[in-house]
């Protein structure tokens, strides 16, 4: 019920309605609740046929960057653990 779908504005008509792209599906949404001006190409959150708010692109990119850093750090940590457990292995048959 409270879910909302990220979409991209592709057209705005004179009735304050926008045509948006929601993962390849085109639909019509009302911009009546939007406080700020929005334009073609902007990302917005859609809920029951209305745009609720703009999606801040810089903030979204920042979150994705943070996740990438965590992923890299955890992969590094995993590699280190594998090497360490290999170093500590007593039953090594070879040299």
């Amino acid at each position, binding site marked *: 019920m409270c879910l909302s779908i990220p979409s991209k504005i592709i057209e705005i008509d004179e009735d304050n309605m926008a045509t948006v792209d929601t993962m390849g599906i085109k639909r019509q949404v009302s911009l009546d609740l939007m406080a700020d001006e929005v334009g073609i190409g902007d990302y917005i959150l859609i809920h029951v*046929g209305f745009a609720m708010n703009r999606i801040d692109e810089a903030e979204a990119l920042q979150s994705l960057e943070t996740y990438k850093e965590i992923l890299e750090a955890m992969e590094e940590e995993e590699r280190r653990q594998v090497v360490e457990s290999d170093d500590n292995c007593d039953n090594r048959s070879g040299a």
Partner: protein
Amino acid sequence: MSELRLKDLYDGFRDPETIRALARRITEEAKTLKEPLYIMEVCGGHTHTIMKYGLKQLLPKNIDFIHGPGCPVCIMPKERIDHAIVLAQVENAILLTLGDMIRVPGSKSSLSVERAKGYDIRALYSPMDAIKIALENPDKKVIFFAIGFETTTPMTAALLAQVEKRGITNLYFHINHVLVPPAVDAIMADGQAKINAFIGPAHVSVISGAKIYLPLPKKYSTPVVVSGFEPLDVLESILMIVRQKNENRCEMEIQYTRSVTLEGNIKAQTMIAKFMKPRDHFRWRGIGDILDSALELREEYAAYDAEKIFADILPTEPIDDHKLCICGTILKGLAKPNDCKVFGSACTPNKPMGSCMVSSEGACNAYYRYAEV
């Protein structure tokens, strides 16, 4: 990555490898927690994400979830579902509502059963569709049974603004818009649920601002993180809670910075305030009467108010749930769906006994769909 693609807003926040990495980071940092974490995810949308992506299974044993009351269909008491049914049976009426409401059982029937009998009951994609239906049916009484939390309330207000502007006189509103903070207060005042952190629903705060949660950390010594609904949003929020606990902080923080601000959408808040005001009493399924926890139309708009216009035929007595259904206890955070005797046997999504099994955001529905039972 320098330019954001629409795809990134979906896939970027669901990447399986990153989900695993973030869960491992949480597991590492949760080792120093002084006490187990009992996080209430207030919104049913979050319950859905947690179950769908198996997040509980990826996290350490000292982090548990308590599912909250944030599912508008689930908290609707039977007497109000009966209102919808009575209104659908009014002569020359068309009853409109949103999605899941159609299948929720009232005391004797449901809207879907009534629709099969021939009453004109329609589920809308958007409240705005009500305008077209009212204009196309000037001789009918079109009644919009409005449901939803703060997220969905401004859409009803926007519809009212259009009705007023176009001078439509055959569209009536039965308002069931409810508020998150009073429900959280009621659960905490009850004192039985062992909650020591909250995940707040981001889309409520897109409208009402994160400011609505500012009193919580002080009142209950619980961190609150306003979280998005993708699995990485939820995991990042949990990491933020773990860090607050480890650093002895207790604050309201925003994880969903890509669309939530402290103030929220002021235009939407102003539109709501123009048409609606807090309602003294509203009975929540399982939780009971909570003061100022819902909205109603202002006096000036009484001509649109279905509760006033059809007052003579609307039942007023509270109606309790089936005695085997524990929806109410689940909504208070005191039980989980699999604690219920009829879960998955006498109560399934195809034949629900309680509202928590009907709604896709209900805890029982999420457990049934995603957990192995």
